């Protein structure tokens, strides 16, 4: 067989187009220079307007809040520097529990979610009960409010007084979180699996791969890659919901704040705990945005997805 060899880089889009080589005598025209000057001036004006508008909005909000009739009282109860200083180290200590819960539950949720999603896509009569069970699971746990699951698991399980079953509110709370989030994540995975075009599976099967091999080597890798942004989004959500294990008495960041509030009747520790959670989720959210943008960019460039 003889086919002429393609020279590499023959196709467009390999980044060499439009960049002048060393021998290119191009000098920007007066027209281009004028256009760029105009664009710069427009950008400067836009920045100025944005800064001014932000300043005005901020000042207006500040004046409205400060001039509210209950402001001095509210300031005392919610924004007391003394209590903030007292609460901060305790809240941080509690936050360590939230972080550990996030790591362990996050891993468990990914595994369980994937198993449920795959169970829902299995074909064949032998898998019928598994399919039904997986569907029922997602319907049930997505519908049930998280707070109710938490109460049932954290308060209900110890009430059974079963031998050998833990009564630790952290373990039980983590279990409740995992149960709920697995249902969400399973749906994310399932959407990913279904978004892979059937022709991909057909191509895999035509090569002699079994249904299971086609799923493992062809469908799932593409499904997971596509679903990274929504998965990270759920992880951010899980991160903040770890604060709910405090209802069982586990001393996390929220519960640490709660203890001081109970003693002092000042709500500042809640604000501190809230800010600490926000500080924790912001890097995660930025990371999600970064991953999404990177994937979009690669797709736009025609790279591998």
């Amino acid at each position, binding site marked *: *067989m*003889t*086919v*002429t*060899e*393609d*020279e*590499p880089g*023959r*196709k467009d*889009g*390999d980044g060499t187009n439009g960049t002048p080589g060393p021998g290119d005598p191009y000098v920007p025209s007066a027209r281009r220079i004028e256009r760029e000057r105009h664009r710069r001036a427009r950008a400067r004006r836009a920045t100025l307007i944005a800064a001014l508008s932000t300043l005005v909005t901020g000042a207006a909000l500040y004046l409205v809040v400060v001039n509210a009739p209950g402001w001095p009282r509210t300031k005392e109860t919610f924004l007391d520097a003394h209590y903030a200083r007292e609460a901060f180290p305790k809240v941080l200590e509690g936050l360590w529990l939230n972080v550990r819960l996030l790591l362990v539950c996050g891993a468990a949720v990914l595994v369980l979610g994937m198993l449920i999603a795959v169970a829902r896509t299995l074909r064949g009569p032998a898998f019928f009960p598994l399919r039904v069970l997986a569907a029922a699971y997602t319907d049930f746990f997505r519908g049930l409010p998280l707070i109710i699951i938490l109460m049932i698991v954290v308060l209900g399980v110890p009430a059974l007084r079963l031998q050998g079953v833990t009564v630790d509110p952290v373990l039980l709370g983590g279990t409740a979180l995992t149960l709920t989030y697995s249902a969400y994540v399973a749906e994310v995975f399932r959407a990913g699996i279904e978004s892979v075009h059937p*022709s*991909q599976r*057909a*191509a*895999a*099967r*035509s*090569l*002699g*791969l*079994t249904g299971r*091999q086609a799923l493992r*080597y*062809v469908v799932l*890798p*593409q499904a997971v*890659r596509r679903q990274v942004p929504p998965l990270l989004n759920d992880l951010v959500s899980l991160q903040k919901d770890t604060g709910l294990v405090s209802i069982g008495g586990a001393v996390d960041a929220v519960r640490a704040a709660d203890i001081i509030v109970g003693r002092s009747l000042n709500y500042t520790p809640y604000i501190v705990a809230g800010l600490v959670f926000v500080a924790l989720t912001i890097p995660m959210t930025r990371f999600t945005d970064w991953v999404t943008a990177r994937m979009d960019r690669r797709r736009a460039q*025609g*790279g*591998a*997805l």
Partner: protein
Amino acid sequence: MSDVPVLRMESVRKTFGGAVVLRDVGLEVAPHTVTALIGASGSGKSTLLRCANLLEEIDDGAIWLDGEEITDPRADQDAVRRRIGVVFQAYNLFPHMTVVENITLAPRRVHGVPRAEAEERARELLERLGLAARAGEYPDRLSGGQQQRVAIARALAVRPRLLLLDEITAALDPELVGEVLTVVRALKDEGMTMVLATHEMGFAREIADQVCFLDAGVVLERGTAEQVFGDPRQDRTRRFLRRVTGAPRLGRA
């Protein structure tokens, strides 16, 4: 011919919902021959190929591969597919794998060929198809013609008994069609048994030992390329050929 046909179809019927796509199809493909399926869009060419590879289950009739009935529900479908290579109109390369990974997937996972050996065979194939420099690239970085040649290499990597080509140039820019057809010509010279559904009448005439005209779910006319194109017996065949050859596509020489 005394040889057992590589592929034989008898009274094959396939419907989708209420639509009868294949009414009563019979076909015989002798070893080392090329069969071209021609016919209007929707005449069932692609469906016929998908049925032959068991990607679609037929309603009635039977299909044999090397004299063994593959439409028997007790037949091992995966084992049948292992012996048939398919190249699709839309290439269907795996976008998350490099060219080499696309080609070595089946040899490694299905046939248990060690990685180094599978990769060597892949590079050999790529070399022959003029794509050696592209081995590490992802499919999206290749032109349509290059992708389709990779798809052919992927199908050949498992040394199939029979190659099914489903409109493999239909999605290509006219200037890229030639490079793919060159590959098919070379495969014929090597004695590969092929069935191809095609709209490229000139190519079908040149390469096919047998031409089948599909119309309304049956093989209305079958014969050598010379006979079907030069002196069609059926009125409908004549009209079809006049329609497709009388109005050449713009931009095609």
